[in-house]
């Protein structure tokens, strides 16, 4: 299968979310948080569509003026590779040391504490 069908480009994902708001409610806005550090990434297409639906659904509510879309790790401990590079005067990389670091993040309750209602549409872990 063509990979283009499987995953969505990061800028395209952001664009789609903005469009999902203004499609039926052109005066409403969206703020996207949590993707600032990503430069190039492919976003799961199936979920992109579902998130567009959720964005549109909340934007269409009379009591909603603005959408916040916040992306946090699904599992609140993430494991990262750290690449320590030594660069010479000539700009060439002399040596790299690979290390690892685990990062702990707040869970969703931090973002939903002020919500009147929370509907959890996530599949359980291991299912996507």
């Amino acid at each position, binding site marked *: 299968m063509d990979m283009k069908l499987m995953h969505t480009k990061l800028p395209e994902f952001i664009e789609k979310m903005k469009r999902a708001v203004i499609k039926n409610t052109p005066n409403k806005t969206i703020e996207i948080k949590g993707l600032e550090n990503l430069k190039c990434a492919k976003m799961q297409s199936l979920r992109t569509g579902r998130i567009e639906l959720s964005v549109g659904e909340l934007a269409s509510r009379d009591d909603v003026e603005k959408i916040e879309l916040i992306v946090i790790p699904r*599992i*609140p*401990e993430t*494991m990262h590779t750290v690449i320590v590079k030594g660069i010479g005067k000539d700009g060439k990389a002399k040596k790299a040391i690979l290390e690892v670091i*685990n990062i*702990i*993040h*707040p*869970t*969703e*309750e*931090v973002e939903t*504490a002020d919500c009147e209602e929370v509907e959890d549409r996530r599949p359980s*872990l291991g299912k996507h």
Partner: protein
Amino acid sequence: MKKLLYRVIEQGKFNDILIPLNIVFIDKRDIDSCGLEIDEAIKKIASGIQGPAGINVFDMGASTTSSDGIVLDGAVIKMAASDNGKINKEFGMLAMQEMRVTDELIEEEPHLMQWKKYYNDRKLFRGPNPAKKLIPVHNAVMSGRAVNNNSATEMMNVVTMEEILLPIFGQLQIMKDENVLIGLTGEYISVGIGMTVAEKYGRVFPTRQFRAGDTAHGSGEYAKTLKQHIPCIVAPKRVIAKYTIDALKIGMIPGRHIGCSPVVLTIAKYLGTKIDFDNITLKAQAELGSVGITFDYLKSPVQLLSEKEIIKRADEIIPGVENPMEIKSSELVIKRIIEI
């Protein structure tokens, strides 16, 4: 109507020490006397706590181990984290795994000779079974801002990013309503908490990753800085000395059977018991040396002390917390009762 007792250190300031979240201690006996399940009791108590909380449930009739391999009476059997009364349904609660102590286990983990000698009528718990937890690496539970890590011995508020260390010795003092030391973790404990023993389902590591004589940190001169400025609540040095002496007395050798932490090595030096220098790795030596616990120091002649003298002079000779303040548990810990 039944009454459920729990102990809590409230989030805020204790003198100059920042308590980054509510710290809750529950005795399984109190849960049993209310006829509740452990999970039920945790949820009921959590539901009444505003702000982030780490919650530990103890079986004071069981036993556990410290990170450097000293066996103790009393154990955490379940940990939880809550925020404004809510417990994350996937990551918020985790049980410790009961370990059946067999001769085979003792052969793999010789520090458990202490269990055989002193605690063989008690169940043994250290960390969780890794197959039963969803957090990939650490033995941690999380709900909102609250994180309860390393099998209930390190808690943090992940939004303010402030943390507190709760070595098991200090928590058991609180459960016994005895005195504790509160202060900053400092260089010695920063180094010492890396000097672990190899344990299956250990407090920090699920597999036997770092043996006695090695360091889990492997950070050279930086090891002493890792937790240096973080507050901690520990047992008074005379209590740690007593348990450590009990271990040394039955032939536990630092660097071979139990961890080579600054505390254990210092007590062995003054008591004149054997240290397995050959088994202490270069990485561990570098970290110990950075806080002045060099082989030269450990091998230098010293006036040997009796068990009683070591316990009496513990504050003077044993390294530990920075700016320690000894207080009664009741000065720090509030006992609360909820009606069930």
